[in-house]
């Protein structure tokens, strides 16, 4: 790190918000699988993530401690009886992003609890991956997530993906007071004990959402994945202000009243990159000459590679996340502790809202692990996830302009996202209105037997999933006045999503200034790693 030469510079090196000055270095932004190096206008405020919180020194000891001193219930060993039927539900690899270095924390939890089950005389144990309507994990991904020993012992009869389209695979437990159907995986519902092994990447995950969403079917998810719920979520990263979470919580509480559920929740810090890519974790002010060289080399390499090779390159680098908290027990008190830690890692206090908000869209999202970030997923990152990375007030003003950097290539993975293709090329040209799409087409694609078959036997997302992706951008779309895709390699993809496009970031900023004036306030949310703003004023 360079020595700060003034008090202002010292402030910049220790605070999360840096204001761009005349001599500030250019900023690094993701644009899909490329890295941009961009000079930003003087006065732009760049919001950086907090440094990674320190990881737990002994994760397995922390797991043992959590299950022996759980929140609001007896220790796990006291809940076990010989001959009982236990289902262990596990979060899928949609999280964390990028996938974490092995051993995955889920493997570590299983390595603690499976011997405990065995020692307690519990033999009827199934491991069910709570994929909900996500794609089935491949055999190799399943092996990587739990390690060879557990995989070999349980796969395929006792370690498998939840099947939301198995006609006999789910049971209706009942209906909440608000009329939401409570539908849960049959094996889980008919077990004496359901243990949920969770990995929380962002505050949206975990809690009641684990069982209520992960182990249900289309009808179950549909209860809260609607444009109406998303419009009333401010934001869905903040469960207290999220209509979607209010619905999920009602369903989850109903589940807890009818099933014995023991949650083991974990969360990780934001250490996404190390080794040759560690410079991506730094502020540009702190780059050493070697970092600058690495960046130049990386950009030169990426420039010469085709998109598929670039994807392979990035996807080959697992993240060195550290586990920062493990809690277990009843759903709500366990989740509350995890949320506290999650916000401690991600939340950066801000006291302003910008006219123009910029962020780079990376190559990965929860829905394209080992696949392509297609246009609909670019949209969900822009208007959904990144927009919702706030607590209190959004970082961009109502009617403000959102600038995202991504090539927005018209490319889809036909194996993972077949229904996305139909949604994007058949439905979106007809209407972008989420409520019309929901009313007119959602069920048609959800029940399309081709997509059902590809979900059940291949590795395709459910036919309804592209609708949910579009809804997840709904509060962002309602809030911002304009979205500009900077660096888009075509005009039609941004246009179909209702966006403008610009060849470069500076052109996009000029377009935004034409709307908001020369004195428009500009902010950059600097990813990676994850950062969320907190404006509670």
């Amino acid at each position: 790190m360079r020595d700060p030469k003034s008090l202002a510079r010292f402030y910049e090196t220790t605070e999360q918000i840096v204001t761009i000055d005349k001599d500030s270095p250019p900023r690094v932004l993701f644009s899909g699988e490329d890295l941009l190096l961009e000079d930003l206008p003087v006065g732009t405020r760049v919001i950086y993530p907090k440094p990674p919180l320190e990881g737990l020194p002994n994760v397995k000891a922390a797991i043992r401690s959590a299950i022996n001193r759980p929140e609001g219930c007896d220790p796990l060993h006291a809940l076990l009886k010989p001959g009982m039927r236990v289902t262990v539900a596990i979060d899928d690899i949609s999280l964390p992003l990028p996938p974490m270095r092995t051993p995955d924390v889920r493997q570590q939890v299983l390595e603690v609890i499976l011997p405990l089950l065995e020692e307690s005389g519990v033999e009827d144990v199934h491991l069910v991956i709570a994929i909900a309507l996500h794609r089935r994990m491949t055999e190799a991904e399943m092996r990587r997530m739990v390690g060879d020993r557990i995989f070999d012992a349980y796969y395929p009869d006792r370690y498998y993906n939840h099947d939301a389209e198995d006609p006999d695979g789910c049971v209706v437990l009942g209906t909440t007071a608000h009329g939401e159907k409570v539908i849960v995986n049959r094996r889980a519902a008919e077990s004496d004990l359901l243990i949920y092994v969770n990995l929380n990447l962002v505050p949206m995950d975990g809690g009641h959402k684990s069982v209520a969403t992960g182990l249900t079917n289309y009808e179950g998810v549909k209860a809260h994945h609607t444009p109406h719920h998303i419009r009333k979520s401010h934001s869905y990263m903040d469960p207290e202000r999220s209509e979607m979470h209010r619905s999920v919580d009602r369903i989850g509480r109903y589940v807890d009243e009818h099933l014995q559920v023991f949650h083991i929740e974990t969360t990780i810090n934001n250490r996404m990159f190390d080794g040759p890519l560690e410079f991506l974790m730094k502020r540009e002010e702190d780059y050493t000459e070697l970092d600058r060289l690495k960046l130049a080399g990386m950009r030169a390499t990426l420039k010469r590679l085709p998109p598929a090779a670039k994807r392979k390159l990035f996807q080959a680098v697992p993240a060195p996340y550290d586990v920062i908290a493990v809690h277990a027990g009843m759903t709500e008190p366990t989740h509350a502790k995890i949320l506290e830690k999650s916000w401690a890692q991600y939340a950066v206090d801000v006291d302003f809202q910008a006219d123009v908000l910029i962020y780079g869209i990376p190559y990965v999202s929860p829905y394209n692990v080992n696949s392509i970030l297609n246009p609909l997923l670019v949209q969900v990152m822009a208007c959904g996830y990144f927009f919702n990375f706030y607590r209190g007030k959004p970082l961009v003003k109502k009617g403000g302009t959102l600038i995202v950097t991504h090539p927005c290539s018209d490319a889809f993975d036909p194996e993972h996202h077949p229904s996305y293709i139909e949604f994007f090329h058949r439905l979106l040209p007809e209407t972008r209105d989420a409520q019309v799409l929901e009313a007119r087409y959602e069920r048609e694609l959800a029940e399309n037997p081709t997509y059902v078959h590809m979900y059940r036997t291949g590795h395709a997302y459910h036919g309804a999933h592209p609708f949910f992706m579009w809804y997840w951008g709904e509060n962002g779309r309602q809030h911002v006045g304009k979205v500009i895709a900077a660096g888009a390699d075509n005009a039609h993809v941004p246009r179909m999503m209702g966006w403008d496009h610009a060849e470069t970031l500076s052109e996009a900023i000029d377009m935004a200034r034409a709307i908001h004036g020369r004195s428009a306030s500009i902010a950059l949310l600097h990813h990676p790693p994850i950062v969320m703003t907190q404006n509670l004023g």
Partner: protein
Amino acid sequence: MAGTERAAFFDVDGTLVRTNIVHAFAFYAMNQGSILGTAWQTARTVLSVPLFAAADRMNRKLFNEVFYRYYAGQSEDRLETLAGELFEDVLRPAIFPGTPRLIEETRRAGCRVVLVTGALDFTVRRLAEHLGADDLIANRMRFVQGVATGRVVPPIIEGAHKALAMRDYCVREGLALEKSFAYSDSFSDYPMLAVVGHPAAVNPDVRLARVARAYEWPILRTTEA
């Protein structure tokens, strides 16, 4: 007038079962009732393979015409009787593991299940019943006084005629073609795929896979359960 109900049209060979019409024919050739008859018919079949291959390469319609001529002179009773054994010995074991599930999924979506095949109807009728199909569109052998003539009742169900037969079926049954589904493994079935609203390539050959990718049709497999 087209209705709002819909159908799922399935090609059979290569899509639902791993066999093709040659397997059925070979089965008949090898079950002629006498050793001499069997030897003669089997030898004819083997010797004709280059002819079949050439005809198939040139034109699927020509292939079917040439091929079905080999049934000439066989009694209807015998062909029907052997069809039962054909199903049990050849077709049933060849059903792809994913086939029952795919058919069940189309039924669950409210589709009428219709098999559309260039095979002769008596050879696939039991398969259609076994799979729970509602209807079968297949070629029909012309019989005169209970003996096969070797000519099928026109039009031959293949290629573009599959699409025409499906269109006629939808009109007759009050189904909406644009809401219907079609599944096939072969590029020769491009017309039957193109005529419906929701086509899909199943275990596609190279040419169909290329077309499916170009038109963004879903590609799925029945070869896995």
